[in-house]
């Protein structure tokens, strides 16, 4: 039944290693079965509430918006979420097609432009595409199947219950057969059924859902160079632009001399862009733009610009003293964000206390595709082609920047060559729009890699101090976590140095440990660069600190890591927000605590799965060790077991197991690929990713000094374990939650290998 997940329903707590299936001939192998259109309400899936309805523009499940069918039977499905590598552009249409009984080989996918009133929320981040939209996708598919059956029944003068729908065909009781194409016109004018009227498939009737055998829709185009990313759109008469941006956020050009730049063959014009800064949302940073007849000329022209910059208020931002300041702040009481029990009493009455402090440097996302956008401003309006995670926000932001009616702005979404949160902030699109208006022609703005590394919306930097109270039996009776980090809020509003509850909720205040007294505090930290969200967001520093601390505490108390984790997690239970002392405004990733609870049983389960799968506790040669970490983020549970081996003084990871509980697994093959990717990005975060500032400017510039894990040293064998669940266990999301447990697991593994503890991310490549 479920090739990837067998045995599934009978053994909900046992994970099965993903079978390595040949993906050749993935279509046409499913056995034929007929599906009654009206089998009764017993097959209807129980709907449940998600945060999707609370997102801007909410959810749309109208099949007439998402589905069109041609007379030749081609089913065209709209992908309204952006594709940046997670596979949602395939997975959501796949769910629609399955529930519709459409033949996947006759399905075409078109990408929606930015239009949330029409399609519902399109903000592709927060690991939300499947979590929020999988029910709507089933409803859309089921609606069309029902409409097909009704149209055929009317045509044949029979009851809809006598009609079956199977693989793009509708069959009548006397052997009548009509294809989807034959019925398209009549079916799509049928009334759209209510949820209760739809006989949804039972899970054993799924052809594509849960199987992991549908290849991503862009696979052929990607492997042949035909896939279209942001910089690949070409318009007649298009100009090519690069921008010299102020090295320090909020800075501006006091003066500039463009004469040599304009002398470069191909350079056509030079323009000053409006000044940017903090608290300006996604507005461009400003600077001087060079417009040319090709990208190379523009780049050369930029090099010839002579600009005198004024740095502004953030010109003294330097990472080393700033980190020391954050650590000092973490030594002082902060603002309480969670208060359970009596932490002061626990610490005062402790037999002893144990304290450690961890730090993380800023990170830049560096998607393989640096930001790029094409804009064409005309008298009629503005047309955009861009790789953006949030096309509707892009549309409204650009309209605001150019003082245009958003109705006159069209945002076409290309494929994204990676996003990781960077492409939620469309400053690069606004640059292209401003320049197109200036020059009166289509303009493509290309960011160089140096631009991308130096002018990002950076992952925050942080200091995390954890102090525990221990009783005479070495039981942890109190947990005090102080976090100090500049906030994402500073990108949106004047900075007061305080983080948002949303940031605290991501891996700090949601601590799932069974400890009598828990307090989480935040200290003030002012932002001096643009802080933005990076895949997994605050979960990275929080999981880094908590995961490393558990490893250190295990060592301190003479326990193994697995025992220590399980002891702290405690018995299976669902965290009660009241007794846990969770604050008002606690953010459960936008989900209710009843539908998506914090379940310590599921947390402990993935830890045990990963630890047992790697053989935690086995004897290893000198210089090798296994590290464990587990973390719940984006309402998904992921554990990492990392086998670390020091080879010629370098940290290597020959084997890693990631166990994930993401509820119902709609597309296990893409879940596996996201876990493989999380292993790599997690190792890059652990070993490499450090953006540092000196005098307000970013020190790093390109892969020279901001390198990533490569094929000569990546987690060589990553094994993904997916906890199987029926559809009733709500699908969560997989884009982000894989990353947070990886860095602490690697660091714990390094300690197990050589007895050396690292407390600052990145820990470096040397053992």
């Amino acid at each position, binding site marked *: 039944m479920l090739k990837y997940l067998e045995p599934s329903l009978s053994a909900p707590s046992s994970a099965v290693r993903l079978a390595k299936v040949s993906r050749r001939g993935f279509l046409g192998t499913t056995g034929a079965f007929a599906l009654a259109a009206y089998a009764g309400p017993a097959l209807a899936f129980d709907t449940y509430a998600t945060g999707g309805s609370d997102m801007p523009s909410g959810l749309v499940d109208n099949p007439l918006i998402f589905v069109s069918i041609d007379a030749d039977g081609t089913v065209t499905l709209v992908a309204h979420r952006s594709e940046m590598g997670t596979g949602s552009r395939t997975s959501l249409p796949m769910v629609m097609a399955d529930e519709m009984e459409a033949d996947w080989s006759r399905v075409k996918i078109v990408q929606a432009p930015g239009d949330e009133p029409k399609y519902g929320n399109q903000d592709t981040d927060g690991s939300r595409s499947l979590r929020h939209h999988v029910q709507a996708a089933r409803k859309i598919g089921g609606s069309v199947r029902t409409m097909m059956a009704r149209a055929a029944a009317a045509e044949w003068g029979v009851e809809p219950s006598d009609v079956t729908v199977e693989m793009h065909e509708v069959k009548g009781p006397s052997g009548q057969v009509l294809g989807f194409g034959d019925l398209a016109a009549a079916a799509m004018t049928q009334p759209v059924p209510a949820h209760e009227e739809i006989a949804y498939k039972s899970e054993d009737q799924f052809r594509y859902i849960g199987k992991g055998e549908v290849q991503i829709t862009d696979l052929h185009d990607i492997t042949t160079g035909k896939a279209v990313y942001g910089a690949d759109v070409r318009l007649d008469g298009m100009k090519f632009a690069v921008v010299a941006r102020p090295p320090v956020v909020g800075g501006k050009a006091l003066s500039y001399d463009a004469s040599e730049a304009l002398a470069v063959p191909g350079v056509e014009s030079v323009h000053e862009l409006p000044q940017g800064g903090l608290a300006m949302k996604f507005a461009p940073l400003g600077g001087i733009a060079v417009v040319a007849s090709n990208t190379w000329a523009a780049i050369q022209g930029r090099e010839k610009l002579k600009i005198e910059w004024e740095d502004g208020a953030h010109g003294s931002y330097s990472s080393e003293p700033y980190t020391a300041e954050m650590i000092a702040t973490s030594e002082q009481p902060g603002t309480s964000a969670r208060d359970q029990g009596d932490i002061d009493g626990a610490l005062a009455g402790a037999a002893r206390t144990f304290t450690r402090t961890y730090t993380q440097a800023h990170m830049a996302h560096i998607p393989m595709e640096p930001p790029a956008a094409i804009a064409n401003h005309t008298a009629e309006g503005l047309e955009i082609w861009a790789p953006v995670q949030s096309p509707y926000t892009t549309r409204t932001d650009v309209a605001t920047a150019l003082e245009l009616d958003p109705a006159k702005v069209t945002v076409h979404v290309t494929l994204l060559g990676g996003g990781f949160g960077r492409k939620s902030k469309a400053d690069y699109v606004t640059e292209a729009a401003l320049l197109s208006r200036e020059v009166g022609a289509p303009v493509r703005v290309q960011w160089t890699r140096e631009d991308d590394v130096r002018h990002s919306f950076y992952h925050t930097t942080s200091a995390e101090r954890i102090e525990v109270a221990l009783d005479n039996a070495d039981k942890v009776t109190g947990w005090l976590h102080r976090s100090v980090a500049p906030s994402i809020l500073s990108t949106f509003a004047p900075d007061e140095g305080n983080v948002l509850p949303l940031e605290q909720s991501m891996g700090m205040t949601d601590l799932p440990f069974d400890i009598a007294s828990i307090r989480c505090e935040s200290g003030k930290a002012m932002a001096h660069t643009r802080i933005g969200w990076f895949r997994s967001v605050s979960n990275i520093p929080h999981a880094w600190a908590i995961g490393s601390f558990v490893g250190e505490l295990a060592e301190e108390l003479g326990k193994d890591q697995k025992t220590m984790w399980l002891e702290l997690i405690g018995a299976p239970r669902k965290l009660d927000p009241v007794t846990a002392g969770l604050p008002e405004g606690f953010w459960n990733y936008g989900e209710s605590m009843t539908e998506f609870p914090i379940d310590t049983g599921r947390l402990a389960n993935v830890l045990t799965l990963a630890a047992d799968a790697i053989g935690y506790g086995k004897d290893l040669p000198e210089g090798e060790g296994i590290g464990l970490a587990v973390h719940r983020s984006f309402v998904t549970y992921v554990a990492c077991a990392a086998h670390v081996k020091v080879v010629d003084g370098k940290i290597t990871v020959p084997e890693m197991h990631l166990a994930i509980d993401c509820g119902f697994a709609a597309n296990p093959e893409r879940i596996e690929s996201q876990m493989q990717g999380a292993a790599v990005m997690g190792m890059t975060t652990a070993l490499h990713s450090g953006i540092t500032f000196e005098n307000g400017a970013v020190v790093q510039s*390109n892969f020279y000094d901001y390198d990533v894990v490569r094929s000569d040293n990546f987690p060589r064998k990553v094994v993904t374990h997916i906890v199987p669940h029926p559809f009733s266990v709500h699908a969560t999301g997989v884009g982000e939650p894989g990353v947070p447990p990886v860095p602490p697991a690697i660091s714990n593994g390094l300690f197990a290998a050589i007895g050396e503890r690292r407390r600052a991310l990145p820990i470096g490549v040397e053992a």
Partner: protein
Amino acid sequence: MRVIVNGAEQEMGDDPSMPLLWAIRDIAGLSGTKYGCGVGLCGACTVHIEGKAERACQITLGDVDGKTVTTIEGLDSAGDHRVQAAWRDLSVPQCGFCQAGQIMQAASLLAENPQPSDEEILTAMSGNVCRCGCYQRIVDAVRLASTGI
């Protein structure tokens, strides 16, 4: 400058200092070859020059005047080079942006060394960055293209 791109002679303008990458993208209008770093450290712009993998951002038009350049669009007329087929069999890509460069690098490796060891694959592919982290499948796909296994 004239370059034979995917079998056809292409006029590339008169600036010998222009990196081949930008000439391929902006003058020849072939967008499969990607810009990723501009300094030869990511491999996204990998093409074949006289059959051998090179970083197009590090080669100038002056270097290739009159030479033969193959981009991802010209690797196989039907897009069915065994490396491309292996990439599809194993569903290698995530975002896909780096994959043309990866495929061109792998095709060049196998042309020179039809049966590379795993170590040889890892080394040969180490100049091609994948930020999504598809390395495990990349290595498996190179091996599949090489051995059929």
